[in-house]
Each structure stands twice: as C-alpha cells, then as structure tokens.
C-alpha cells in the first residue's frame, strides 16, 4: 500500500464539502430553449445595470431558443467562488474571469477554446491586446468587450513652466533620464518636492499591473518568456534590478507623494500621476483642459504598458457552446461594446467600437491609451497558470522595495520563491504532458 486509497477518499470528500458550500443548481429548460448559466462580476452600479440590460436584450432576441441566466458574483471573492465551483463540478456555462487568471482555469481543465464558436469577423475585430491575453497554447480561450489601460497623467501647465517636452505618442515617450530630469525640475518648483503619484495607496494587483511594465521596458521581466519555466535570471536580472533601483530612487529622493487620501493629483499636490483609464473621469473633472495623458517612461527598450481586464470564457462542461458563442458575439457587437464601456469607462474591446468611442476614438482625449493597446506597447501579464503566485510574490517584493530594502536581495529572493513554486507544481505541466524531471 502506498497510501493512495486515502488520497482517493479525500478527493471524493473535498468536492462534497465544497458542493455544500457552493449550493447546487438545477437544470430545467423553459419551452425548449437552451438555458445557459452565466457568471459576471458585480462591479459598479452602472456596470451591473448594463449587463442586466444586455442579457435581457439578448434573451428577447432569442426568445424560445436561448435563455441566459445571469448571476452576479462579488468581485472580492470572485476567484475563490470559481475555484470552489470548479472543484465541485458546478461551474456555470459562461464565465466571466479576470484576464490573468485565465491560464490557471485552462490548466485546471475548466474552459474550452472560444475561437470555433465566434464568427470570423468578430474574431478579427477584437483588439490585439485582448486577443493576445486570451490566447494560451495557441488557442483563443477568452474574449473581452473591453480592455484596461495604463499611462502617465500630467498637468500640462506645470510641464510648460519647466519647459519639458510633451510626448505626442508612444514612440516619443520620455527616456527614463529625461523623466528624472523632469522630476527634478518639477520638484524645484514644488513646495514639498513630491511631484509624482504612483498610486502607492492602491493594493494587491495594482503593483504587478503598474510596475511590471517598468521591468519589461528595461529588458527584464517577472518570469522567462515564452516558456515561463523560471524567474531566476529574469526577475533578478541586472536589467530588472537597475530598473527597480531607479524607481526606489524616486521614492528615496522624495519625488513620490504617498497619496494616502487618493487626492494627490486632483488637489494639485503632484504634477504627474501613474494611473489607469479609470482615473480619467475624476482627473478630467479636477484639471479640465489642462489634463494630458503620456506614455510611461522608456527604460531602454521602448515604453511598455499594461492591459487586461474582465474576459468571457466558455466552460468545458457547457452543453451548447454554439449558443454560448452566440451570446459572446452579441456582447462584442459595436453597440453592446459601446454600451458597456460607457458604463465602466474602459477601452472598447473591438476596433470598430474603438473608432466610434468619444474617449478613445481618433480625436478622443485618451487616444494614446488606445494606440498603446494596438501598437504592441501593452504587454499581457505572464500567460501561465503560475500567475496568481507570481503576482503575490511580486507584491511582497514591491512592498519591501518601496520601503528601502536592498533591491537585488529582494528580487533574488522573490525569484527563488517563484522557482520553488514552479518546481512544487512540476512546472505547471498539463496532466497529459510528460513529467519534466
């Protein structure tokens, strides 16, 4: 006996326990219509209202054929709920998911590719950044109606005062040297010398989202690409260490406002704010015409930025993936994409909708963010089932770096921790793949 029976017993008991927690769903069709369960993150009020209206519109269009039943799940515990449902075999047919979690869900065998169930033109219209994030091992597993974007907000008048050059597009990004000169000049004119907001008041996923681009732009990264088989030599490479040392230098020089009240930029305490598309409405209201969006500084290999937001996937167990695909195609129609992005302010996820967007369209104030998503400057977070672990470890490392610990030591330790996790999970090989030992 090698103990296997007891393991089996556990694997039977666990799902039962989780099933009790997750609650059970039933199957009862209504007048012969295909009934599909869909999970969506609860989001803000406007977002909730929009998805409910969209589902109602779709159900009305497909009366008697397809019926989508929507469940809204709180954002904070979304992933935990999905994990519990997956273990219990109770996943919904259609599942919204946060972009970087996709690969873990695919690895766990919860999702099926969506490509075959979407019309050719719909697939062609999707933004390259969303397609890239949704593609894993050569197949498209998820699509999103919108994407997120990251940039550097600035007050134009402050930059003019010090005579700084204002970059017009991603190709004209400040080099990191130029950026530091700008910081220095701005600081001289500032009463407390703190002129930059890095949103250090945010928590969790913000840190890999906002600062992995710094590593990529310097030629480093979180983990080796494309194999995702080690972090050593990448996260602790000289390029990564040098880039994070510069960033730490900004904090130590006093250029960075801790922004505890989340009002550093709106109150005019700082001239520059490292922020996401979601900051725009408040910033615009506070600063008006003077607000300008710039690419992040270039650490040597060209500016890089982040992307990635909520996506839709189809569960492997979904009985009618064609019907599910129809719903996704509906959500990706121009009008629907525009309705959703009007509600949440995100970047429209298809090119035709993007062109018609007042914010991100050709003359829109956030055009630069849209260009970065199409021009290859936006990089998806590592496309590996290990991402949740990488993210947590990087968050801890960043906390140590911002509080002045030795950057090389911190990153070497983080890289070793990630590698230990990769080893413990057999490199996140798929069950059908041979063991690498």
């Amino acid at each position, binding site marked *: 006996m090698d*103990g296997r029976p007891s393991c089996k017993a556990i694997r039977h008991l666990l799902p039962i326990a989780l099933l009790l927690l997750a609650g059970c769903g039933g199957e009862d069709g209504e007048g012969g219509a295909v009934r599909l369960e869909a999970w969506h993150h609860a989001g803000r009020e406007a977002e909730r209202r929009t998805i409910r209206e969209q589902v109602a519109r779709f159900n009305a269009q497909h009366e008697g054929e397809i019926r989508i039943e929507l469940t809204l799940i709180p954002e904070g515990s979304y992933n935990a709920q999905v994990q519990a449902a*997956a273990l219990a075999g109770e996943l919904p047919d259609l599942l919204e998911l946060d972009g970087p979690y996709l690969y873990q869900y695919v690895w766990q065998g919860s999702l099926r590719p969506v490509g075959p169930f979407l019309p050719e033109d719909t697939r062609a219209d999707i933004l390259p950044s969303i397609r890239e994030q949704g593609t894993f091992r050569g197949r498209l597993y998820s699509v999103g109606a919108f994407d997120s974007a990251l940039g550097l907000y600035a007050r134009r008048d402050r930059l003019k005062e010090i005579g700084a050059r204002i970059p017009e597009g991603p190709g004209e990004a400040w080099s990191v040297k130029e950026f530091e000169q700008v910081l220095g000049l701005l600081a001289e004119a500032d009463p407390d010398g703190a002129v930059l907001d890095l949103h250090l008041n945010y928590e969790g996923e913000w840190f890999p989202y906002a600062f992995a681009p710094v590593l990529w732009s310097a030629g480093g990264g979180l983990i080796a690409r494309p194999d995702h088989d080690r972090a050593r030599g990448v996260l602790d490479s000289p390029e990564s260490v040098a880039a994070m040392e510069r960033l730490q230098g900004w904090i130590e020089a006093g250029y960075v406002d801790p922004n505890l009240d989340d009002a550093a930029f709106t109150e005019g305490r700082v001239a520059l704010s490292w922020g996401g598309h979601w900051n725009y409405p408040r910033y615009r209201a506070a600063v008006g015409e003077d607000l300008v969006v710039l690419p992040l500084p270039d650490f040597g290999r060209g500016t890089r930025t982040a992307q990635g937001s909520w996506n839709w996937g189809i569960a492997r167990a979904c009985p009618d993936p064609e019907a599910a695909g129809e719903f996704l195609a509906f959500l990706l129609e121009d009008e629907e994409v525009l309705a959703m992005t009007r509600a949440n302010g995100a970047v429209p996820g298809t090119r035709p909708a993007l062109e018609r967007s007042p914010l991100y369209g050709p003359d829109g104030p956030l055009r630069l963010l849209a260009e970065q998503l199409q021009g290859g400057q936006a990089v998806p977070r590592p496309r590996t089932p290990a991402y949740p672990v990488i993210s947590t470890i990087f968050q801890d490392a960043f906390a140590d770096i911002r509080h*002045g610990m030795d950057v090389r030591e911190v990153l070497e330790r983080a890289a070793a921790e990630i590698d230990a996790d990769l080893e413990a999970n057999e490199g996140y090989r798929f069950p059908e793949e041979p063991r690498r030992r």
Partner: protein
Amino acid sequence: MPLRNRWKSFIDRETPAAWLLAAPALLGLLAFVALPFLLALALSFTDLRMGSPLPVEWAGLEQYARILSDPGFLHALRNNAVFAAVVVPLQTALALGLALLLDRPLRGMVVFRTLFFLPVVFPMSLVAVVWILIYAPGTDGLMNAALATLTLGAWEPVDFLHDPRWALPAIMLLSIWQGVGFQMVILLAALQGVPQTLHEAARLDGAGPVRRFWHVTLPQLRNPLIFVALVTAILAFRLFDQVQIMTQGGPLDATTTVM
C-alpha cells in the same frame, strides 16, 4: 452481595445508556476533530495541491524536508522563539508589577484597574490598526514624536513597521500593551487570595516589605504565575493577527511567524 460487586453491576447497567447519551457528541467529535486531523496528517505525506489537475501522489517525507530546509520557515520559527523569549518574562513581570500597584486600598482604584484592563477588551485587529497610526513614519508619527520629545530631539525618526530592525520589537511592544491587562487581573485576584495572617506573622518576625514580597507573596503566587506564563507562551506561539494586519510578515521576513 458485597458492596463492590453491587457498585460494578450498577456501572454495567448504566454503561449502554451512557454511551447512547454521549453518542451524538462523540460522533461530532470524531467527524469534525479526529477525522480531519488524521486526514491532514495523511495528506501531509502526499503532494496534494488545491486546484491542481495533476494527480495526487505519495510524497513520503518530502514536504517535511522542504519546509525544514525553507529559510522562510526557519526565520518564522526564530521570530516566534524570540517573541516568546522576550514577551513571556517581560509581560509576566509587568503584569505582576501592575497587580502589586493596584492591590492597594486606595480611593478610585477601580478606575485604574479598568484603565489597565481596557486594552484587553478591544479586538486585536482594532488595536493593530490604531497602532499602525501610532507607529507612523516621519516626525509626525506619534511614537516618533514622543521619543523625540523624551530624548530632547536626539531621536532620529524611524519607520517602525518597515525597518527590519524595528518591526519585531514594535509588534512585541503592542502585544505586551494589549495582553498585560488580562494577566494583571489574574494576578490581582491571586494577590487578594494571599492570607493577611502570613503577612502579619512575617511583619512580627521583623521582615521588611522586600523580604515579605520574596518570601510570602511570591511563593503564594507560584501557581497563578505558572498559569500566566504558560498562557502567554501559548499565545506567543499563536502570534498572527497583529502581524497580518501591520506588516504581513515583512520587511524581509523580519516578522514572519509560523502561523
């Protein structure tokens, strides 16, 4: 019938009923305490990973070897040991000192007792959040400002919770402040149980206050002191809440604990 046999048959008659009555509780105990414990023990010899599609395999002692060679875990053990070694004697001594101070028939003593016991009433999570503000970095931080005033400005402001040298002592101080009231109350109760006759006898024999403390009070408090030290030690090894809220184990593992 001899008495002993009659007693035995009484037990025999009652045994089935006793088992029947205890059964629900015993079943619950088995299902929710014994079984999970045994399963957890068995699982520790496998490579079970939550959410992994890879098959679970027998791993033998590998997990134990891994954790015992993990510098993070060893660090955590050391932090726990240091924490216990400092906090247990210090907190017990402080509690005894407070108890002695408060064991006097003075007017308004109840107010003082309440004040010293107050921190125990608040949940640790609340206390930790308040102390984050106290430990705020820079000259504006309450603790930094207080130390600067006390040292007439010689104190260099410290970022207590993010400096590897200061983070653990900072957490120790908060823990002592929060926990000392509870032990003080226990020792106070024990102090009031020390017979006055012993003190009077010692006084008649010419013993001063110091000798009476060492030879009367302390021996009388032996068992309560052992109890207090034991409970403090257990709590010291269960250290978690304040660390999780204040430092999340950082900086550089300076405050990680086993929990």
